[in-house]
């Protein structure tokens, strides 16, 4: 396996681990809370 492929696998493992840690910390809910409200900044009102 080439060095570059090892980087890919390490990155994938880190990314997936981060998602799990974040979900356990309740961050998915923080994303949800923001995403279900109309974002005034996004639409140019605030």
């Amino acid at each position, binding site marked *: 396996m080439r060095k570059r492929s090892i980087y890919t696998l390490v990155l994938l493992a880190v*990314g997936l681990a*981060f*998602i799990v840690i974040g979900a356990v*910390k309740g961050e998915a809910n923080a*994303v949800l*809370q923001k995403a279900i409200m109309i974002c005034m900044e996004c*639409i140019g009102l605030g």
Partner: protein
Amino acid sequence: MDKKKKKNYPLFKARMYIQACWTLITNSYASGFINGTIYQGNVKSICVPGLNCYSCPGAWGACPMGSLQNAFAGRVSGFPFYVVGTLITIGALCGRIVCGFLCPFGWIQDLFFKIPPKKKVRRLPGEKYLRKLRYVVLVVMCIILPLFAKGDIGVGSPWFCKWICPSGTMIGGLPLIALNENLRSVLGWLFTWKMFVLVVILVGSVLMFRPFCRYLCPLGAIYGLMNPVSLVRIKVSKSRCTSCGACQRACGLDIPVYKEPNSDDCIRCGKCITVCPHSALKMDASLRGRRKRRSAAREEA
């Protein structure tokens, strides 16, 4: 032309259809368009890969860039593992393939690029430096300002969303404002500014390929950094490539792909692969090393 390369072609030729289908499917919450509201179910805790505003009436998912800024702005305590993990995972899997195939605002720019004149601008003066601007936008507007410029109650704002993001204005702001009278009644100068930015980018997209993606998009910047190490990459066959430059001439971003197949500018549209007269380029998702691949080829023979 070998079989494997031929297999790649229909995918690239159908790129516009894939972009259209992806945009329609991920923004198909019909009730939002009927009532001038947005989807509020649990699926919205999942980030979509592209710059898809979560304030689009039809959006089922969350925008990763908006979520990242809001996490830094104080909605998440400590390091934002969830959003950063999502970005790393998507980037490690496919890099800027997201930009070529799975981003609504990328698709919108591609549609505007089809409008005449046929002769387009290939580069601006100082192009090399202008292309680094997206990293400045990422660091300053998406990380530093949300993190440190906090208001009285200790919460910052998503600066990129507020001052620049044309995806928010186009697929979030415009439909919501058209459908929702309450929102229409509070329009102000910020909306005028965001409309100005949007119009400049759309006019720019008629004249040049993907101006927002090449100069300003912080999400493209993140995925571009992972182009060289993502699972799916472009490979150049040294034995086939004659350095004729046909790929670079066909590339809307003017990338010398035969020299830099994994440039951070490359949106993986595949055009270079389809035009190469020597079939020297291919999109590859193999994790195997060169030596192993060679022995596999020998075994096949």
